[in-house]
C-alpha cells in the first residue's frame, strides 16, 4: 500500500483545477449580479436575454442596458485592482502595498477632480489620461518621500508616506469641491467609489487599456517572483530589475487609472485579494497574478451585489463596502507582521 502521494504533482493539478473552478464561481456570481436588484430578473430570463435578445422585452432591456454594463465594469475593475495590488506587493516587498494605501487612488481622484473643475476637461479619453497622470505623480511622490526618510523605502515608511499623501490630496480635492460646488455634484457618488450608473462608453475607452495591462502583467509575472525574492537574487537570475520595475510601474499606473476612471477610488481590493490568493497558490507570481485577476473579479461582483442589497432600496457605494471588509484585514496583517 503506497501512502505517499507525490506532493508536487498534487499541488500543481490543484492549481490548474482551481482556475476553472474560480472562473465558474465568477460566472455564477455574474448571473446572480444580473438577476438581483431593485427588480428581480429570474435566472432563466437572464439566460434568455443573454442568448436571444428581444428589444421589446422590458426584462431584456434591464439586463442589457443596466445590469450587464455594471457587471462588466465590476469584473474588469476587480481584476485590475487585484492584479495592481499583487504587482505592487511583489515589487515593494511590502505586504501592505495596494493602489489605495500607497496614495495612487488619491492621486488619480485629485487629478480627475482638478482637471474637470479647474481646466474644464471632460470626456472619455481625458478622464483616464488625467487619472493616469495623477496616479503616476502620486506613486513617484510616495516613493521619493519614503526614500528621503532615513532608513529607505521600507514597508513602514512606504505605508506612512502613502497615508500622508492620501490625506494631503484628499484635503486638496475637498477644497476643489468647495470652490466649484455645482460642477461637482454628480461626482460626489463617483468619489466614494461606485459602480452605479456606469454606461458602456467609458468601458470602451478604458477597457482595452486595462486588458492590455493585464496581459502585460501576466507576461511579467515570472520575473516578479524573482524580484520578490530580493534585488540581488533577481539580478543573479538575470532579471534587468530597473527595466522590469519601470514596466511594472507603467502597468500598475494603467491598471489603477483605468479603474479609477471607471469606478472611482475603490480601496483595499488590491490588498485583500492577493493575500487571499496566496493562501492557495503560495508565493509564485505566475499563479498569484492570474488567480488575483479571477478572484478579484468575483470579489468585486459579490461586493457590488452586497452594496446594492444591504440597505434596500438605498444603495451604498461599493467603495464603502470594500473598505469595511478591507480595513480589518489591514489591521490583521499589521498585527501578524509585528508578532
Amino acid at each position, binding site marked *: 500500500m503506497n501512502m505517499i502521494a507525490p506532493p508536487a504533482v498534487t499541488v500543481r493539478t490543484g492549481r490548474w483545477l482551481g482556475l476553472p473552478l474560480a472562473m465558474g464561481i465568477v460566472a455564477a456570481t455574474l448571473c446572480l449580479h444580473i438577476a438581483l436588484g431593485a427588480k428581480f430578473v429570474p435566472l432563466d430570463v437572464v439566460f434568455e436575454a443573454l442568448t436571444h435578445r428581444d428589444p421589446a422585452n422590458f426584462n431584456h432591456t434591464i439586463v442589457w442596458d443596466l445590469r450587464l454594463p455594471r457587471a462588466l465594469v465590476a469584473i474588469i475593475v476587480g481584476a485590475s485592482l487585484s492584479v495592481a495590488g499583487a504587482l505592487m506587493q511583489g515589487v515593494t516587498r511590502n505586504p501592505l502595498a495596494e493602489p489605495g494605501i500607497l496614495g495612487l487612488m488619491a492621486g488619480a481622484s485629485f487629478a480627475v477632480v482638478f482637471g474637470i473643475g479647474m481646466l474644464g476637461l471632460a470626456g472619455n479619453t481625458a478622464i483616464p489620461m488625467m487619472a493616469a497622470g495623477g496616479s503616476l505623480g502620486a506613486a513617484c511622490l510616495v516613493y521619493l518621500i519614503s526614500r528621503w*526618510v532615513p532608513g529607505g523605502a521600507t514597508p513602514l515608511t512606504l505605508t506612512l508616506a502613502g497615508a*500622508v499623501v492620501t490625506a494631503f490630496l484628499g484635503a486638496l480635492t475637498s477644497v476643489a469641491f468647495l*470652490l466649484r460646488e455645482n460642477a461637482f455634484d454628480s461626482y460626489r457618488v463617483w468619489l*466614494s467609489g461606485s459602480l452605479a450608473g456606469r454606461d458602456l462608453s467609458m468601458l470602451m475607452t478604458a477597457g482595452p487599456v486595462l486588458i492590455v495591462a493585464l496581459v502585460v502583467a501576466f507576461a511579467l509575472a515570472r520575473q516578479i517572483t524573482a524580484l520578490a525574492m530580493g534585488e540581488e537574487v533577481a539580478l543573479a537570475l538575470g532579471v534587468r530589475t530597473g527595466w522590469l520595475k519601470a514596466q511594472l510601474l507603467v502597468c500598475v499606473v494603467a491598471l489603477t487609472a483605468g479603474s479609477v476612471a471607471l469606478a472611482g477610488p475603490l480601496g483595499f481590493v488590491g490588498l485583500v485579494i492577493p493575500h487571499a490568493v496566496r493562501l492557495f497558490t503560495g508565493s509564485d507570481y505566475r499563479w498569484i497574478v492570474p488567480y488575483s485577476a479571477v478572484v478579484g473579479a468575483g470579489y468585486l461582483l459579490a461586493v457590488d451585489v452586497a452594496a446594492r442589497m444591504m440597505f434596500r432600496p438605498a444603495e451604498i*457605494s461599493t467603495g464603502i463596502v470594500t473598505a469595511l471588509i478591507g480595513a480589518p484585514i489591514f489591521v490583521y496583517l499589521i498585527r501578524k507582521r509585528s508578532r
Partner: protein
Amino acid sequence: MSTTVASRWYVVRLFSERIALRLPVAALLWLAATLALLVGIIAFSLTVGSQPTSLDEVWRTLSGETVSRTIDNVVWEFRFPRALAAALVGAMFALSGAALQNVTRNGLADPSLVGVSQGAGLAVVALTVLWPDAVGGLRPWVAFAGSLAVAVLIQSLTWTARGASSVRFILMGVGVAAMISACTSVLMTYGQIERVLSVLTWLSGSINAANWADVQMLAVWSAVLLPALLLLSRSTAAMRMGDATATALGAPVRWVRYGLITTAVGFAAIGTAVVGPLGFVGLIAPHAARRLAPSGVGLHLLLTATLGAVLVSLADLVGRTLMAPIQIPAGLVTDLIGVPIFLILLRRAARRTAL
C-alpha cells in the same frame, strides 16, 4: 530672596534656598509672545468679513458701546464666539496630541491620524442620523464614548506579547481610521438626507457655526481637563525616561497612563463634538513648542496649548478670507499645513530610531 542667572534657566531662590525655582526664561518669553500673537489674530479676525469693521469699532463694541446695530450683532453674535471657539478648540487638540504622544512615546501620534477623532465623528454622526430627537447636550458625551472606544481598541490591538510599540500604533490607527470612516460613510449615504446635510459641514472641520453655547461648553471642559493634565504632567516627566525608571522614581505608571489616555481622548472628543475633526494640530503644536524653547512638562503643555490656539485661529482666518465668499473649513487648512510638517517629523523621527 536672591536671583541668579544660569545659562538658559533663571533660578529664583527663596527663603535662603529652601525653595528654589528654575524659570525657563525663553519658554516664558515665547509663551507671552504666542499669547500676544493669539490676541492679535483674534482682534484681526474680528475686523474682517462680509461687513468690514475697523479695529476701533470692534474695540468700542467689545467694551459695551453700541456703534451700530449691525456691527454690534456681527461682532457679538458671529465673529467673537467663532474666534474664541477656534482658539479653545486649537488648544484642546494640541493638548490632546501632547498627551497622546506622551502615552505612546511616539512623536507621530495625533488624534486625527490614529482614529480618535474619527471615533468621535462616527459617534456624533450616528447620533444625528439615527436618533435626531436626542438632546444636543448629549453630543460631547457621545463623542467622548466614541473616541474612548477607538483609543481602547487601538491600544489593545497594538499590544502584543512583545509589548506595545511606536510606529505600529500609527499604522494600526490608519487602518482603524479607514474602517471608521467607511462606517461613517454608510450612515451618510443611508441616512435621511436632511439629517445628513446637517452633519456634512461639521465633518470637514468647520468653525462657521460656533455660538456662545459652544464656547461655554469648551471653556467648562477645558477648565476640568487642563488641571487634570497638569497634575499628571509631573509623573509624565518621569515616564519619559521609561516605565522602569518611572516606577523606581515612585510614579504610578499605570494610573498615569490611564489618566493621560482619558484626558487626551476627552480633549479630542470635546473639540470634535463642537467643530468636527481637525487634523494635524495635535501633531504640530507639541513639537513646535519643544523646538521653540526647552522647558519643564507643565510649561511645555501651556506653550503647546497657546500654539495650537494660534494655529487653528490662523487656519480659520485664512479659510474664511482667502477665497471669500467661499469658506474653506479650518480642518482642510490644517490638513494642508500639517502634511509637510508631518513629513519633516517623520524624517527626524526615523533618523533617531531608524524605524
